[in-house]
């Protein structure tokens, strides 16, 4: 379970401080599929980076599985990212010099899984995202949708509790977007993952069981799939 209490984030830019997040309170239950929407620059990515332990909040508390992780040191946070969290990015962020399979293996190698085992696990994961037949292709030889599938496999291969996806369909056409979204939903249900997904696309957001809206660094609206008769 993810629980944020009064999270703020302030950046210092050239001597002046600028507050991007103003006291965010948020709970995400295990196995939930949460969408985050909001205008550009509202602070969605900043929020997700804090949830993903890539960034530290300026103030506030963050409980992950009931442990306060807001101010852990770098190494601890790296280990938690490696074991509990899988990232999926808008621009896929595969390493260009590695093959699809090697990209998927990477989180396992940082965890110290022996190579043969890592290969086997990664191959299975690629099969689940239907990319096994492209295992030894470099990312540059794959389409956007295919790259995102590989990236999803990489996020899932370490069996994390939480998947964080920052506009995972933002660079894809609507047909491919829907394919990727379907893959997310399928994996989320099969594996009982907690998914937090940022999107600009209302069609995507509506497929999430619950979504929240961020505006100017504040949560302004919570919607559950059940109670949105007006849309």
């Amino acid at each position, binding site marked *: 379970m993810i629980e944020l209490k009064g999270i703020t984030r302030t950046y210092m830019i050239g001597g002046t401080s600028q507050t991007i997040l103003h006291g965010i309170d948020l709970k995400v239950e295990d196995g939930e599929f949460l969408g985050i929407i909001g205008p550009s620059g509202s602070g969605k990515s900043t929020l997700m980076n804090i949830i993903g332990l*890539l960034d530290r909040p300026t103030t506030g508390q963050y409980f992950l599985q009931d442990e306060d992780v807001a101010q852990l040191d*770098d190494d601890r946070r790296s280990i938690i990212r490696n074991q509990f969290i899988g990232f999926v990015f808008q621009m896929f*962020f595969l390493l260009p010099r590695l093959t699809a399979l090697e990209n998927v293996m990477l989180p396992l190698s940082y965890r110290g899984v022996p190579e043969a085992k890592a290969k086997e696990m990664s191959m299975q994961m690629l099969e689940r995202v239907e990319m096994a037949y492209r295992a030894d292709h470099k990312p540059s030889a794959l389409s956007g949708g295919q790259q995102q599938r590989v990236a999803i496999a990489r996020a899932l291969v370490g069996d994390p509790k939480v998947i964080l996806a920052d506009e995972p369909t933002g660079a894809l056409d609507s047909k491919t977007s829907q394919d990727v979204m379907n893959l997310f939903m399928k994996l989320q249900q099969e594996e009982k993952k907690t998914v937090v997904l940022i999107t600009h696309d209302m069609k995507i957001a509506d497929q999430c069981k619950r979504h929240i809206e961020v505006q100017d660094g504040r949560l302004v609206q919570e919607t559950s799939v059940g109670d949105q008769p007006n849309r």
Partner: protein
Amino acid sequence: MNYSQYLRQALDNLLSAKLRTFLAMLGILVGTASVVALVSSGQSATEKALQQFKALGTNLFAVSFYQSESSGNSAGSSEEDKISLEQVYKLKAQIKGIKGVSPYISLYRPINFLGHNVNGNIIGVTETLQRTIRINLMSGRFISFLDRYSYFCVIGNKIYQDLQKLGVQDPIGKQIHLGENMFTIVGVAEKWQENSFFNQDVNGSILIPLQASYILSKNASIQNIVLRVDPKTDIPELQDQINAFVERNVPGNKTFYRSAKEVINTMKEQNQIFTLLLGFIGGISLLVGGIGVMNVMLVSVAERRREIGIRMAIGARRNDIRMMFLFESIVLSLLGGVVGVVAGIVISNMVAFFAGWGVGIFIFPVILGFFVAAATGIFFGYYPAYRASQLDPIETLRYE
């Protein structure tokens, strides 16, 4: 990640930027090669010098005598202060470690051959000198024990050449004026290899029987002895014994010693400094190579910011990132080092071959080469690796 994974990763990354890797490697290669080549050359030069020396025998020991100012006789060189040949033989008999004695006397007298002046020194010697400092004869014989006060002489190679210029083909049996006296040439020496225990140049000298020196000059006295000593002799103890002997028999003299061990040691020391200097010069080119590595690694870090951020996002610790880059620069430097060591050996052997120093591989420069190459990789790779590890993943992952 463990070390073998870091290593594999480094190799993969280096192979994916072949040209850049090659250029950075080249700097290290040249640097290592010059360190190895220069230090090896320095060592083979040393070896060669020592070899020449050892060929003369490490069992040589030179004693020089100086009449001390403070000696009781104010009249200068009095007879009782002079060491006689008999005393020299007594010295040999009394001190156990001494195997042989070759006393000699240097004289300066005009030399004249058939009305032509010849430049050269005159040295009064005993028959043992020939073996002790290795004088080989071209023709004739050396000064003999029987010659004593006879007017016989052996001429050095340079003197022989001078006589040839005067039209003498075979000098044996010819007469030469030394000061007032006529000497008969009985032997001609081959070119003589300099020896640091004998302070005269045999090539430019005329050797006469030691006793005959006293006829040529009233002031003649034995001022130098080359001793052959038992190799097991304790040198300081030997010196004490000789000092005691001098104190008892010719108290007006001070002694000065030169032992082979001592000379070899100073020679080694000097050569070490020389080799160090050469190594330092090689080190400068390695420094340039190291700066090249640092430059390449900094560029690489800048280019791979995004990769660093991605790796951090999926769980790389700062140390993993640091190791990734550090291993790249170490592997780079070691590759350059290996090839550089080989090139250095080849170059130094070529130098040794053409200088006639004798070909061979020295272990020290090879180890030194690997060590400095690796050290360069670590030293110049550390800062870029550290910079990479301190990047903020958020910054690197933002869309630009």
